[in-house]
């Protein structure tokens, strides 16, 4: 492949004035340490924002916006960029006004204040949260042209919180208690049934994300964390946990978040998020601007079943696959960052990535998924994404034979 490696670009013929002239920032003082008590991104990054798709929903209070995953790197999503999904808007609930009730099949129904929560032993875990509808618009064919829109209903955050099992131990779960209803304090009073085994295994009530208090739009002051399972279960503004002997079959677990197959019957309780990956750059919002030569292909991969053990990248639409390089800590039910570095010859490419998780699950093609599930299952689309790269470096969301 030696022919593809370009010689170093031609030297500048005239000296670059950005170097030869003393620039204002090298001469005059910048902002002092009192200017931004809480810092924001520099103005040049004002395009790195969550975006919503206005036509997706009737209004913005029960709607979604998307993490700009195409512009991010590493595995941590900054709090200000974590996608939002609300069913009745993002509410303001002060810590002083916060109450968490445990009721149902328990020895003693209880009420906790926020201050009470802080007195339980805390854990710190980095987990991805993916909406079950992520990539849902793509079931029947490529629809949105950007990784932010096709795959941006995900974020990856370090949570600090207390274990649900410790909270339940206070109330004393009766032996018949096999399910847990989690309920939110917002005007959708969001509810989801969680099987008790999962609740006791690794669910948390989190009050910090990436070190600081939960953001308002992520459920301040406390939310449920259901590692590896669909985002809708991670009830925000959590106000109640009820123990029961049966699931509740609430609106968000019957009307929504159920997967209708080709024969019209629907899967329910499809909680775990299958292994998935996407190339975030290049992608439609991140064209290749530097022309041929060294190219860094990067993306993210995750699995609700454990860690990601391998990511494969193809540049020829799946004829040949290459091992991508995983970088950064490899943590259970957390995002993983991958890279595939290459010399690009400037010809069109068909880029795909494919995740393999620690259970041996291999991310399927969209066609394989459709074979199992048809075109109408809306949720849990973890099919392989294809970006067509043109000779001028533009990327497009496509499907291929």
């Amino acid at each position, binding site marked *: 492949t030696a022919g593809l490696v370009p010689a170093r670009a031609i030297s500048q013929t005239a000296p670059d004035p950005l170097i030869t002239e003393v620039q204002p920032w090298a001469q005059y003082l910048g902002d002092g340490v009192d200017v931004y008590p809480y810092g924001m991104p520099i103005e040049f990054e004002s395009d790195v924002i969550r975006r919503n*798709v206005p*036509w*997706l929903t*009737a209004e913005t209070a029960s*709607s979604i916006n998307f993490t700009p995953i195409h512009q991010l790197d590493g595995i941590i999503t900054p709090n200000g960029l974590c996608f939002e999904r609300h069913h*009745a808007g993002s509410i303001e609930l002060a810590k002083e006004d916060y109450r968490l*009730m*445990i*009721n149902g099949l328990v020895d003693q129904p209880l009420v*906790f*204040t926020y201050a*009470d929560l802080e007195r*339980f*032993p805390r854990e710190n875990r980095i987990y991805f949260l993916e909406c079950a509808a992520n990539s*849902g*618009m793509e079931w029947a064919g490529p*629809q*949105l*042209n950007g990784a932010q829109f096709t795959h941006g209903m995900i974020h990856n955050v370090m949570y600090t919180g207390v274990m649900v099992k*410790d909270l339940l*131990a*206070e109330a*004393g779960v009766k032996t018949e208690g096999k399910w847990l209803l989690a309920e939110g304090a917002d*005007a*959708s*009073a969001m509810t989801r049934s969680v099987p008790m085994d999962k609740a006791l295994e690794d669910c948390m009530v989190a009050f910090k994300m990436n070190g600081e208090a939960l953001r308002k739009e992520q459920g301040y002051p406390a939310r449920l964390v259901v590692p590896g399972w669909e985002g809708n279960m991670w009830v925000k503004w959590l*106000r*109640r946990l009820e123990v029961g002997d*049966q699931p*509740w079959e*609430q*609106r968000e677990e*019957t*009307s929504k978040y159920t997967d209708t197959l*080709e024969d*019209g019957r*629907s*899967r*329910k*309780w499809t*909680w*775990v998020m*299958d292994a998935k990956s996407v190339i975030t750059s290049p992608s*439609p919002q991140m064209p290749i601007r530097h022309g041929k030569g060294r190219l860094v292909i990067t993306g993210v991969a995750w699995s609700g079943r454990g860690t990601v053990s391998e990511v494969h990248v193809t540049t020829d639409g799946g*004829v*040949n*696959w290459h091992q991508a390089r995983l970088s950064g800590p490899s943590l259970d039910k957390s995002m993983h960052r991958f890279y595939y570095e290459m010399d690009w010859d400037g010809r069109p490419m*068909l880029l795909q990535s494919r995740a393999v998780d620690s259970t041996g*699950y*291999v991310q*399927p093609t969209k066609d*394989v998924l459709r074979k*199992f599930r048809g075109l109408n299952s809306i949720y849990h689309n973890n099919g392989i994404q294809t970006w*067509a790269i043109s000779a001028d470096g533009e990327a*497009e*969301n*496509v*499907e*291929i*034979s």
Partner: protein
Amino acid sequence: QDAPDTADAATDALNLTEANAAEVKAATEAEADDAAADDAAGGEGSGAGKVLHLGRAALPEEVAAWDIDVRPDGTGLPEGQGSVEDGEVLFSDTCASCHGEFGEGVDRWPTLAGGIGTLADQDPDKTLGSYWPYLSTAYDYIHRAMPFGDAQSLEPDEIYAMLAYILNMNDIVDDDFVLSRENFLTVEMPNADGFFRDDRDEVELPELTQAPCMESCKDTAPEITRHASILDVTPDTPDDGAESPPPMQ
């Protein structure tokens, strides 16, 4: 003045009488005993798994106020009843502005009626009537979340009545039907048997845990079969939404 000057001042502080020294000493001795106790308990000490006696007992009135969920077996349903007739008026007043007079959905607001028998179609129409397996879910949801923007404002009789009307629009009950706590479980939802538990482990995993092909995996070079650019519904491009794109389910 610079840092060491302050240090001097701090050093002076050394010679002050320490008012709370005795207090601290007492604490110190108590803690020593305590430490021995918690170390004896295995050095874990985090309290995980132990009852910590945090929180307070919930009062019955408090549980009643928040325990609003309704289950498929009818648990949680309050006393009350409402007719299709009354429901039509109430629905028209409170719900129709979004969901339409006949549950057909205004603009992109959700449709509540119709679509029975379409679930296996190429374009299924999933509504409360055609899709929801349990009527309890509808009672529960309308009470907790509707009308949108004025949640938990409805009385039981109103909810029973509006629900009777929604069932009627869906041809599930007759025009003279009166829904009540008592007859609630007799209503048969068309798609009651339409759901089954997640079977991905059995149906999909055997195929999806095969070692993947890495080289020469396709006989013919792949070709593009579909383009997102054809729909052209991506925001932040000049003609956003020009193709009257679909609302989200």
